[in-house]
């Protein structure tokens, strides 16, 4: 399976998850829009995956362990 087919398949499967979980809230037209959005998200994920990362490249987020008393 080539790369494009692979991520189309991923986005189709993710869309099915939404359809199963939230389908009752959404009309056919709305589901079509959701499908396009899932594809856009999958494309963005592909762009992220195209950049090589090392095992040591950690998430760039602030996290401070919280303490209530002095140690």
């Amino acid at each position: 399976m080539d790369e494009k087919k692979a991520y189309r398949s991923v986005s189709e499967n993710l869309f099915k998850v939404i359809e199963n979980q939230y389908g009752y809230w959404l009309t056919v037209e709305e589901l079509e829009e959701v499908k396009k959005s899932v594809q856009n998200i999958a494309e963005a994920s592909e762009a992220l995956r195209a950049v090589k990362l090392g095992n040591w490249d950690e998430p760039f987020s602030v996290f401070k362990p919280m303490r209530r008393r002095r140690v």
Partner: protein
Amino acid sequence: MRSDPLFMPVRELSRHIKSGRVSPVELTELYLRRLEKIGPNYNSVVTVTRRRALRQARRAEKEMEAGNYRGLLHGIPYGVKDLIATKGIPTSWGAAPFKDQVFDYDAAVVKKLDQAGAILCAKLAMIELAGGMGYRQPFASFTGPPRNPWSPDTWTGGSSSGSGAAVAAGLVPFALGSETWGSILSPSSSCGVAGLRPTYGRVSRHGAMALCWTLDKLGPLCQTADDCGLVLEAIAGPDPEDPTATDETWTYKPRSTKKRYKVGVLKGVADDAQDEVRQNFEEALNVVRRFASVEEFEFPDLPYEAITRTILNAEAASAFDEFVEAGLSHRLTAPEDHWGPYARTTLLATDYLRAMRLRGKMAKAVAEAMEPYDAVAAPTAKKAATPIDQEFRKVAPGATKDVMGAVGNGCGLPSIGVPDGFTRADLPTGIQFMGYPYDENAIINMARAYQSLTDWHRRHPDIPEP
């Protein structure tokens, strides 16, 4: 300069207040009347906080009579975007399902402005849930489409729509807005006012609606860059209630406008902008060259927009998880906001983490590329105000790439937008100066230098008197 206080910069207004020529109570009455009578013309106000405002104004007047002057914001009326909590006054987040929501505390920024003696006059309209559900057109607020004071048939930009319109229309001397990606700079540009997006963590967000915890910032919209400095000084600083707030206090340091700077311009940054936006930006750069050297540069090749977009999608999905689960998005105003939040619920944790890992690479690459410059200049927005009844992405559809927004918000960099001209239809356009984290003084001073050589900020829309 007009002799009445409308459209006066805060610094000038405060001189009149301190000298006793302008009474805080009379000034507050003036703005309350404008908010009540003119505000509805632009759908820019959710709640006028008349009782609280007059109570604060009387207190300010008494304090000043007793010789207790708190500083430049003492007695100055202002408004806040309606995602900022105010005790006992509805905080709607711009969204019908929350229109009766009331908190029993003031947000940190409101407390700080209270301490500075400023007078809260209004909760200002905004795009529902700060645009976090993926809106596509101006009619995405339960208070109606926010109309631009320069031309009511056009949009204010968003999501701090009412904050931009209220300052532009002289309904308040300054306002607070919020930005996750573009929500201060967009209305700053469309409404022709100064808008400052501070460094991430510079201002406590305690009491403000969360859309994306690692992207949200609160900042001022004002008549001038100088006013942005004054307001930022009042709202910046540590807050134990917001773990992301920096431990440092911040002091505004206006410098001589004669200082020379080095400004970088991202290669091709205005190529896909509307023609008049690009022309005004090029002319603005000619003015910038009078106080700075200007040089083109490039960022290394990284998927900047995909990184910031993925972070935004993942965090917004989590922030509104319960809301979406309960089907409440269907009670929002814009049809696209009904289905907008569903797709991102399937975003994989590994993709979010990959975006957060790439964020580190992005921050490093951007810091290195910007190192030779004091700031980076770009058009504040690539389009002038778009028609009120159209999807904004369909107007000038080429002008949708926003590397400056992706980089600036993804890396938490401060940026200030100020007006740089008008289109043939008399709609404002703007130039932004984006700088280093925690160095808001550099970009404010650069914008001040620009405003000392131009008069775009002294032009105001024709507003019918109440």
